[in-house]
């Protein structure tokens, strides 16, 4: 194991030289033919990474003078890693955020650039769905680009449903009927839980708020015209409490805390869980875990009260990309953003190859390539046509309210907090953020206008 000294000397020199070189590259400014654009990507699987590299990175590099240089990260760490790097002034040129709210934090701290002129140059206003374009703005200027969007749906195992003669529920009554029968059959009627990732609680809350309270009322709260303490919200949380009491949700209060997403997905596959409220990000894992990938199915959320039409789609932006204020070549960075998120055919080619959620672009059903999974096409052609769309908490709620909603929900599950207490605290937290002016503008419910 001992290394002779004369080997170590050149090694030390080489290290010193490479440190010096690295310094030159990062501070030395761009060369004549367009600079480098650094990008941190994180991917679901090696095949996903490969598709991204080929379609977006290699494609862009072949067509442009500027070159994109991608470093691959893990999905679980990308968010915090970017936060640290941005704060330390070491951000990559393309800055990742897990939604418009995080992107707006960077924008308000002037860590990312104003994209208005690029929005005009590339026609983003017409390319993106209006609600998503609106969310990309901070104080009237475009600051980020939505790179993927999704929604909450109800997952089930088609084979299991057929066996029991169930059809996907559309009303509260039907939903509770299926849950009741599943319970009697010894299954967990409704998957859920927050083990491994506390944020799973807000998937449930998003689904129930939108399906039981309805988008109009949520809009009113977010614009300061109604309160979380209003009876509709109380009834929604009490509905969840009743599911917990009956042992329907995740099998009861205690197992709520020990059930993770993996257990729910495998439960659906093994036929031990009947239904699961989760987001479109689960498409890929379901395909992976089901023995016969054809057997998993999704249905729009049922209506959970008389006030709401069945089939509401709470909208969510999964990834929002901005350009770092320290980017060497912001023009090239912005053009890469457009290359990734602004072109329907290219975006759908990526979706076809990987099953990843597409950006919120104006897409017609006939634009999907044949290889895209039918269930994906179905979802992404239903949403733009629907007027019954709502609000995902992580996309539309301000950060502290969202954080409160997740951490304090535990006490609702254990019974330490009543629905009223929980919602009163939520309103307090929201009031502070609303007064500070850091809330995002929610789109006007489409059923109204």
């Amino acid at each position, binding site marked *: 194991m001992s290394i002779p000294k004369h080997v170590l000397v050149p090694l030390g020199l080489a290290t010193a030289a490479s*440190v010096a070189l*690295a310094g030159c590259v990062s501070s030395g400014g761009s060369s004549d033919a367009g600079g480098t654009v650094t990008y941190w990507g994180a991917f679901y*699987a090696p095949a996903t990474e490969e598709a991204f590299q080929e379609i977006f990175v290699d494609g862009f590099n072949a067509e442009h003078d500027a070159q994109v240089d991608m470093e691959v990260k893990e999905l679980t760490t990308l968010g915090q890693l970017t936060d640290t790097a941005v*704060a330390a002034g*070491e951000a990559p040129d393309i800055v990742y955020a897990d939604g418009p709210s995080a992107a707006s934090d960077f924008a308000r701290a002037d860590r990312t650039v104003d994209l208005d002129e690029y929005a005009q140059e590339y026609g983003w206003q017409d390319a993106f769905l209006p609600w998503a374009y609106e969310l990309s703005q901070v104080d009237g200027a475009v600051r980020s680009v939505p790179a993927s969007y999704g929604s909450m749906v109800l997952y089930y195992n088609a084979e299991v449903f057929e066996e029991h003669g169930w059809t996907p529920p559309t009303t509260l009554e039907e939903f509770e009927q299926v849950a009741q029968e599943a319970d009697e059959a010894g299954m967990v009627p409704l998957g859920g839980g927050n083990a491994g990732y506390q944020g799973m609680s807000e998937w449930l809350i998003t689904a129930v708020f939108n399906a039981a309270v309805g988008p109009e009322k949520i809009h009113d709260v977010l614009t300061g015209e109604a309160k979380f303490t209003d009876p509709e919200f109380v009834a929604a949380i009490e509905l969840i409490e009743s599911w917990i009491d009956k042992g329907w949700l995740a099998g009861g209060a205690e197992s709520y805390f020990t059930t993770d997403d993996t257990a729910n997905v495998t439960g659906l596959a093994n036929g031990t869980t009947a239904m699961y409220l989760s987001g479109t990000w689960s498409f890929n*894992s379901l395909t992976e875990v089901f023995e016969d990938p054809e057997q998993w199915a999704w249905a729009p959320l049922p209506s959970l009260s008389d006030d709401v039409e069945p089939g509401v789609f709470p909208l969510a932006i999964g990834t929002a990309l901005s350009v770092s204020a320290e980017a060497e070549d912001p023009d090239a960075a912005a053009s890469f953003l457009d290359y990734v998120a602004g072109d329907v055919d290219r975006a759908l080619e990526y979706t076809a190859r990987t099953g990843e959620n597409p950006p919120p672009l104006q897409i017609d059903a006939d634009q999907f390539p044949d290889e895209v999974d039918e269930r994906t096409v179905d979802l992404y052609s239903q949403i733009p046509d629907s007027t019954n769309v709502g609000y995902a908490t992580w996309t539309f709620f301000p950060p502290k309210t969202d954080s409160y909603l997740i951490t304090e929900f535990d006490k609702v599950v254990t019974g330490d907090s009543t629905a009223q207490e929980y919602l009163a605290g939520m309103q307090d937290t929201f009031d502070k953020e609303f007064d500070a002016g850091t809330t995002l503008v929610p789109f006007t419910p489409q059923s109204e206008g």
Partner: protein
Amino acid sequence: MSTLDQPTRARRHPQPVTWVILGVLALYAVGPLLVLAGNSLKSAREIDSNPLGFPQAWSWSNFAEAWERAHMGGALLNSAVIATATALGVAVIATTAAYAMTRLELPGGGAWILWLLVSSSLPIQLFLVPLVSWWSTLGLYNQPIGLIIIYWAVYSPFATLLVRAFLVGLPREYEEAARLDGAGELGVFARIVLPMIRPAVLTAALVAGLQSYNEFMLAVTFIQDRDLQPVALSLYSFQQGFTTDWSLVSAAGLIMALPVVVLFLTMQRRFIDGYVSRGIAV
């Protein structure tokens, strides 16, 4: 002679109660490891339906898949470099500092202990932002040596105090004898003290090396280049959205632990020698 024989025999043949206690402790340590080994040979779905039983079909391919998907070959090499450099660096830093505190006239006394212990009570997560910006100014960001220096700083307080605790308990006669014989300070340190505290230094180095081998948060923050990343990051390659493939994580976890167990086995003798053979030989 007979009085001396008896206890020696007792030492060679421990009482049954010894074996019972050691056996129970062994069961506690090993039981979960067997479950882990089982998981590494099941499919992800089987872990859910058959958690504690034997694997129905032994999927040895999990190991190959984990190895390839997480680029474990290169990552293990990177980790070997980082852990070795951390262990060596910490051993040097800790041994010299502990020697200065106990044997040379370093002013300050208890203040050093206070400083070392308080600085090991600071949550390093909070320092990531300033450290990243300093490290990039110094050209240490995204360089293994940059990460290694951080590990030196983070793991040396414990190691210093550990070696210090050994030095305090060590009689000074040998050193004084050597000084009377005209040995210089460095000679006393290198030829007299060092051989006697070798078990402590080895233990401190091993602990620091291991901690750096398993460390995640600093590694993920300070190494951006995937080709330079250590193996602790590999375990996070099996997360698909919010769903984790526990069979692959288990396989990767075992692969990651194996080199350490082997190293530990081969270094056994060096831990056991020490005072007994060397100390008396002087």
